[in-house]
């Protein structure tokens, strides 16, 4: 019984990022929106886990979460998976290049990931003839970048939990 429980809790903790990604996208809360702050949680989750523990988060899950977000929010299907996969791609590339893991390294390398993915997002929405507020997209990028360290600390705690 103890072994089964331990195995269950191990699996649950190990699958945490994938479950979180699916939950956030299905519940439609991928963007946490306060007055002028809007944080894109999906970008942070994908970037952090692909950078730090890619075994816990498959690209298939990221793709699926993107599709669900598109459907729930009414965007052209394919726009969110593309931008999320680009975030994952940049994170994967940074992981190959870097040796030391520090918050500053992770945080600074998050800038190109955000820039490239938001540019792609912007282009796909233009291609699909959707009007969006560019100012909002810019605000969202800034807020997401500023909020990254908060989730970095929480997720690092979860990784320690996984290892223990």
């Amino acid at each position, binding site marked *: 019984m103890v072994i089964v429980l331990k195995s269950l809790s191990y699996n649950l903790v190990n699958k945490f990022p994938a479950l979180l990604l699916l*939950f956030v996208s*299905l*519940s*439609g*809360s*991928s*963007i946490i*929106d306060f007055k002028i702050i*809007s944080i894109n949680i999906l970008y942070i989750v994908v970037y952090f886990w692909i950078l730090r523990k*890619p*075994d*816990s988060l*498959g*690209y*298939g899950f*990221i*793709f699926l979460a*993107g*599709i*669900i977000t598109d*459907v*729930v*929010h*009414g*965007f*052209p*299907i*394919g*726009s969110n*998976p*593309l931008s999320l*996969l*680009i975030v*994952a*791609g940049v994170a*994967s*590339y940074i*992981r*190959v*290049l870097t040796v030391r893991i520090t918050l500053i390294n992770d945080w600074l390398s998050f800038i190109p990931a955000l820039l490239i993915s938001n540019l792609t997002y912007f282009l*796909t*929405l233009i*291609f*699909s003839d*959707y*009007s*969006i*507020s560019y100012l*909002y*997209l810019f605000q*969202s990028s800034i807020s997401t970048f500023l909020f990254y360290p908060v989730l970095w600390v929480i997720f690092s705690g979860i990784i320690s939990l996984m290892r223990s």
Partner: protein
Amino acid sequence: MNTSRGDFGIAFRSALLQKGTQQRFSLIALVFLSILLIFLETIELKPLNYLRSFAKDVIYRGSLIISYPSKATKYIFSEINDHISLLDDYEAIKNENIKLKNEVSENSYLTLENNQLKKLLDDQIILSSNIVSARVMLDKKSPYLNSLIINHGGNKDIKNGMAVLDGKNFIGRIVDVNFFSSRVLLVTDLNSKIPVIIEPSGNHAILAGHGNNEPTLQYLPKNHTIKKGDKIFTSGKEGIFSPGTPIGEVLNINEKKVLLLSEINQITFVNIKIKKSIKNK
């Protein structure tokens, strides 16, 4: 120089092209699949539409189930607030009732007069108008899109472009129809442009959403005579919506902001106008 280019190539290949030990799909393959999906979204084919409708219906139901805990929490909080403000509400409703009673007789006379004038003008009158009521399944307003998901779709003869009402007030139009669900684009959305008429001046304009709760009037004539509090109705100019459905009133003349008659964030049920109009000859 060659070495660094070589390093870049190795890192790039390793990051994008190779699958990790636990990865089932290659990143680059999924990127191409996403691009393909974006292109497919622009193609209207019957099998593709069926597939899209099915996938969307499944995801909406899943999202509905996931949203239950947060909905329940919101409901509990709103119930507590309702109980706290019960006495104040009672007083307000009592006063409003007295005021409305006084206006009823005047309104019925105006309705009668309006119908007679319409007949005289040989205007298009709606002989029968089917209203389908639907429940709001999801109201996930993203910062970019203000829309609702309702629980009726093609199964109730709902079609793209139909007007959606909250009670009798216009709140948006259908933009995406699935088998058992549809998406309503609200008037507050950035992509929403509705032809309207302002009473009593009779000026025509376009009501444009901006992503917030205050849409604005655009393309008003230069010498317009609108005032604060003027009523705004659908004009029916493009032939999409029937004319005379109330939307809101002018809130600010300088910025041409409009106050909607319905509280967009508080909608649980909507009416969809499936109109059958016949020209009066």
